[in-house]
C-alpha cells in the first residue's frame, strides 16, 4: 500500500496550526472560536484538507465505507517498522 498523505511542511504557520490541530476531520468552527487569528490560514488549510480527502479516497478506493480486515501479521509489521539507516564507521 502506498502512503499518499499530503505533506504539511509546505503550509504557512497558521494553516499548519489548523492542520495539526484538526487533521482532516476536526471542527473548524471550534478551532476558530479558540483562536480567531487562525482564520488567516483557513483557505490554505481547506485546500490541504480537500487534498487529504482526495488522497484518502485514492488510498482506500472502492467503497470507502468498507473497513479492511485486520490480521496479526499486519500489526506485527507495523510494530516492527523499517530497518534503521546503517551508520558506516571507519575501521
Amino acid at each position: 500500500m502506498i502512503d499518499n498523505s499530503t505533506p504539511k511542511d509546505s503550509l504557512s504557520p497558521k494553516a499548519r496550526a489548523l492542520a495539526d490541530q484538526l487533521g482532516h476531520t476536526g471542527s473548524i468552527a471550534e478551532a476558530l472560536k479558540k483562536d480567531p487569528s487562525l482564520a488567516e490560514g483557513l483557505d490554505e488549510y481547506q485546500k490541504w484538507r480537500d487534498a487529504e480527502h482526495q488522497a484518502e479516497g485514492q488510498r482506500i478506493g472502492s467503497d470507502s465505507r468498507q473497513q479492511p480486515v485486520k490480521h496479526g501479521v499486519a500489526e506485527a509489521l507495523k510494530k516492527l517498522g523499517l530497518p534503521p539507516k546503517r551508520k558506516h564507521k571507519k575501521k
Partner: protein
Amino acid sequence: MEIMNAIGKVLALGCGTTLEKVLRSKCYATLEKTNKTLEARHPSSTDAGVALRAGHMEFGRLINTVGERQALVGAKDITPDFGIGMELRPLIQATGEHIIRAAGKCLTLDIKNMAKQWQNSTADQQIDICRALYHCLRSTSQDSKGDLTMEVLMESMESHMKSNAHEVRKVLPQQYGMWNPDSCVANCQGKTQMLIAFARLAKARVIVVHPLKHAGKVINAIRHHIYEKVVGDITKRNITHLDKPFAESLQAGRIDLFRRAADEYFHVCACIQVVDGRWVLIDPHGLNFGIMGEEWNMPEIVERLDRYSEVLPGLHLLATDKGRHERLMKMADKRTDELIARSVKLEQHLAIASNPIELIDALISSGEIRFMIESFSKHDQEKLDKALTDPEYIRLVAMTFVLGENIWDPFRIMMDTDFMKKRLHSIITSHHCVAMNELNHQWSEDGMLIHPECELTNPEYSVAISAINSLVDHYGPEVNRFFMDYSFDQTSMFNALRGIMSRWSDEESIMIGKAAEKSLKALPVQHPLCRLRLSHVI
C-alpha cells in the same frame, strides 16, 4: 392539489421563490407556449408524434422492451390510459431549472473554478476535473473508520444511520446549503443537483442516472462470495487457531455483510460528457466513478433521449453494462483460489518445522515472506523495496511473524504447548486476509465497475420529478396518477404498485397499480425493490 402543494414547497423551501412567481415568469410563459404547440409541431406521421400520442407509460414500456423501431410500430394509434399528462410539463421543467439554479449557489469557489477550467481543458483534463469533483463531493461521514473490528463496525453503522436518516439528509438546495464535506446534508438528489449545476456552468452535456443495480451491491456480492470461500477453507483445513485481530474481523465482517445485504434504496447520480464524446459517471453519494465503456452504447442512448426529450421529457431509458461486471466476480474468484492455493502450499512447506527457529527458516525459504510484507506494510514502495533487499530485515520480519505477540517473552513461548500450531495458523491465514482486502481497492473508483444497470434521463425535468416525489405528504391516487402521467421511471411505478398491495385500495389506485405492474413486468431489468414489491402484489 397535493402535487401543486408539493411543487409550491419545492420552490419555496428549496429555491427561494414561490409557485405564483414562477407561474407569472417569462420562462414559464415560454415553456407553456412551446408545450401548447407540441401536437401541431409533431404530427402523428412522425416518430416523435407517435411517441407523444402514446405517452410516457406506453412508449416507455415499448422502447425499453422491444427497441425503438418496434416501439414506434407498436405505439401507432394507441389510446393510452396513462402517460399523456401535458398541462404540468412546463411547470415541472421550470421547477427543475429553479432547483439547478439554486444548486449552483451551493457550489464552492473551488468547484466553480473547476467549471471555468473545464472549457479550456482537453478530454483527459476534463476527466481529471470529473474525478476531482467526485472526491470533492464525497462526505466525510463516508470515510473509512479504520480496520474492521467490532467497535469500528458499530461506529460505522451508527455514523451511517445518523448521516443517512431521512430527517437529516436534505433534498433541496436551500435546505442543504453551501457544499462542504463535513456538515452539508445534501443527499444523492442534492449532490446530483450540484453536479448538474456544475455541468451547466461548465457548459458540459449532462444526463441523470438512476441506478437499478448498484455497484456497491456488486462489490458486496463479491465480498460475500470471498468471505464464504475463506471461511469454508479455514473450516475444511481445520485451522482452529486464528489470531485475535483476524478472528474479530471475520466476525465483524459477517455482520457487516448482512447489514449491507438488507440495504436497498432508490438512488440517483449524474453522467457528464467530456469533449471527445466519452461519458463519465460521477456518483459521490453512492461512491462510484468511472468512464462509461462502449458496452453502454451511450451515443445511441443519448441520441434517443434527445429525439424524444421534447415530446416525452420524463422518459427514462434502460442501459446496462451487458454483464461486464460479472467478469469481476470471476477475477475475484480466481484470485481467491490462487491465494488459498498458496496458503495450502505454505502450510505444507512450514509443516516440516518442529520448533520456532526451524519455522523462521522455513518461512524465509517458502518465498512467501516478501509477498506478506508487501501486502501488509503501509510504507511506500520505494522505502519498502530498499528494506526488502536487506536479509537481516527479512529475518527480523520472519521472527516477528513466527514469535507473534510473545516475541519478548520466551518463557511464555516455551510453556505454550500449542505455540507452533497457533503461529502456523496465524501465518497461513494471512493469505485469506489479503484475499478479503483485495476489494478495498479501486474497482468502483477507477471505472472497472460502474452501476451495471441504470435508467438514464433528462436532467432538470427528472430532478424536479424526484424532488416533488420527496415533498409529497400523502400518496393517494391523484399523486400516483401524476407520476405515471408525467414520467416513466421505476421509482414512480414502485410507488404506484402500492395500489395493488392492499385489499382496501380504491378502484383508481388498483387501476394505476395494475398499469405499473404491467410495465414493470415487461421490463428486462427491474430495481430490487420493484421485484420485491411485485412478488407481494395481491
